């Protein structure tokens, strides 16, 4: 890439690849602002001839979309809070305490992190029915911990292993108890890791489909994933621009995270996702 021409050519090539990859998402946004009739043009128009937000308005006023969104938000935040609190305590214990069985436990966490949901889903379904909490958001929170907790634990454990042991030792010598050292020193240091883990957990919960499909079949508790799909299935004729508008709305939290908190995502990846 020494010559200017070479640089330009490479940049053009790279950006073509990037845009082709991103095309489905660009197309989603474009479709969502086209009037319904424009979708049926042959050949299709690329830029909308006329930009309209009618689909978004309809989505909000004429469909249960907002209800699904509220469910998804409750589900996402509850799962994240429960999982991150439990996992932070657990990871701290796995990293800084010595007791029998600790290594086994860490291994088990990794094992469950790889476990397929379909193995657990049938017993969980029976469990929810038996407990009488099937068809509630709460049942989904419980189900989501099955994948979110091992994941968060593993991620946080990696982050916490990166905090030098000397910091806790210094706090102990300075007069802190183990719990005070955790609160005063470890937690502030783990904060970026906790933020990363929270974001990942939230995204996992936000995007989950299978458990929501099996455990919930009422609009009262249905999150966005199954809710939007039910809009597709129940519609007499598929209104693609409406669905695309729903897809855009559904991706909003991700877009926000990407725009403002991306460094936490990549950091989380480095810590736990790949290193294993």
């Amino acid at each position, binding site marked *: 890439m020494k010559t200017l021409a070479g640089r330009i050519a*490479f940049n053009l090539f*790279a*950006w073509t690849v*990037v845009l082709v*990859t*991103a095309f*489905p*998402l660009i*197309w*989603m946004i474009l*479709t969502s602002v086209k009037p319904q009739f424009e979708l*049926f043009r*042959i*050949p*299709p128009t690329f830029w909308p001839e006329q930009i309209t937000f009618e689909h978004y308005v309809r989505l909000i006023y004429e469909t249960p979309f907002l209800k699904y969104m509220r469910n998804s938000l409750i589900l996402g935040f509850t799962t994240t809070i429960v999982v991150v609190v*439990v996992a932070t*305590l657990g990871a*701290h214990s796995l990293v800084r*305490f010595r*007791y029998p069985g600790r290594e086994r*436990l860490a*291994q088990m966490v*990794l*094992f469950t992190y*790889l476990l*397929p*949901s379909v*193995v*657990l889903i*049938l*017993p*969980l379904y*029976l*469990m929810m*029915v038996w407990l009488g909490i099937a068809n509630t958001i709460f049942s989904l929170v419980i189900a989501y*911990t099955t994948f979110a*907790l091992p994941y968060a*634990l593993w991620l946080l454990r990696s982050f916490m292993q990166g905090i030098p042991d000397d910091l806790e030792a210094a706090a102990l010598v300075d007069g802190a108890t*183990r*719990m005070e050292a955790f609160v005063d020193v470890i937690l502030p240091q783990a904060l970026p890791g906790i933020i990363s883990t929270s974001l990942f957990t939230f995204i996992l919960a936000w*995007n989950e*489909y*299978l458990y929501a499909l*099996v455990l919930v079949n009422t609009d009262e508790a249905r999150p*966005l*994933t199954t809710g*939007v799909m039910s809009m*597709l299935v129940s519609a007499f004729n598929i209104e*693609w621009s409406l*669905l*695309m508008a*729903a897809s855009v709305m*559904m991706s909003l939290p*991700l877009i926000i995270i*990407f725009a403002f908190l*991306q460094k936490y*995502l990549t950091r989380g*990846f480095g810590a736990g996702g*790949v290193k*294993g």
Partner: protein
Amino acid sequence: MSGNPLDKRYAVLGAMLIAPTVLIFCAVIVYPLVSALYLSLFTIFTPTLRGSFIGLGNYAYLVNSPEFWRSLWNTLLWTVCTLTLQIVFGVAAALMLHQNIVFRSLARSLILFPYFVSTVVAVLVWRWLFNDLYGVMNHLMLMAGLIKMPLDWLGSMPNAMISIILVGAWKYFPFVVIAVLARLQTIPDALYEAAKIDGAGAWSRFVDITLPQLRDVLVVVVLLRAIWDFKEFDLIYLLTGGGPIIATQTLPLMVYKDAFGLNDMGRASAVAVSMMLVMLSFMVLYLKLAGRGERESQP
């Protein structure tokens, strides 16, 4: 452990901190896992949840069931193909994004986005792209003269299998990109400069320096992705539902269908357990690798 009271107090505190995790694990993971094994020995009618013990009957049925073998074959085919594409595109894109291109961080975000977007969104968009009448895919291919008639992307074979493999590759290759990119950034520039001085060209620098440095991370990524692709449900279920007929039905889909379509939870559990047994080899391999890496990184 020594008999030091303080040491013991610390151990108790440590155990208390991990206790919520252990309790939740037992309730929502260990118990269901064991009971999945147990359920697979029954025949259970889903709507009433009544059943009777049939021992290994479900497994015997599966061994003789062409549908099971077909689903296993589909699972393997899908895993191998989509994984290969993910690795190839992932490594290529990572190498590309590692170069100094304009608006690199924006390019990176755009490439990563498919991985983070909900499968539901990905599937809706792709179904719209694949739409037989108004879909862009058909239109572009017609325009390019590659096809004469609009294709039925999801409803016929082998198109359906190819489509899910492609969408799978699109959705999950960013995982490879992030992993490889992170590793690329840790390769010291001095290595490349030394190779340049030794007269190595761009290609031999890639083969002799980059690839060996990437080997470890690629092994981990391949294993992880293999495990995750193997158990993929959402993407395939939402794109084709396993169809046409069972042409793209993988094992996770078969579990779902047996349990809630054919209303036999026992047999569904048997499929799930069989599937896990196949995965177990990958999982054990990964656990071993991860364990090794861990020991190496500790003093």
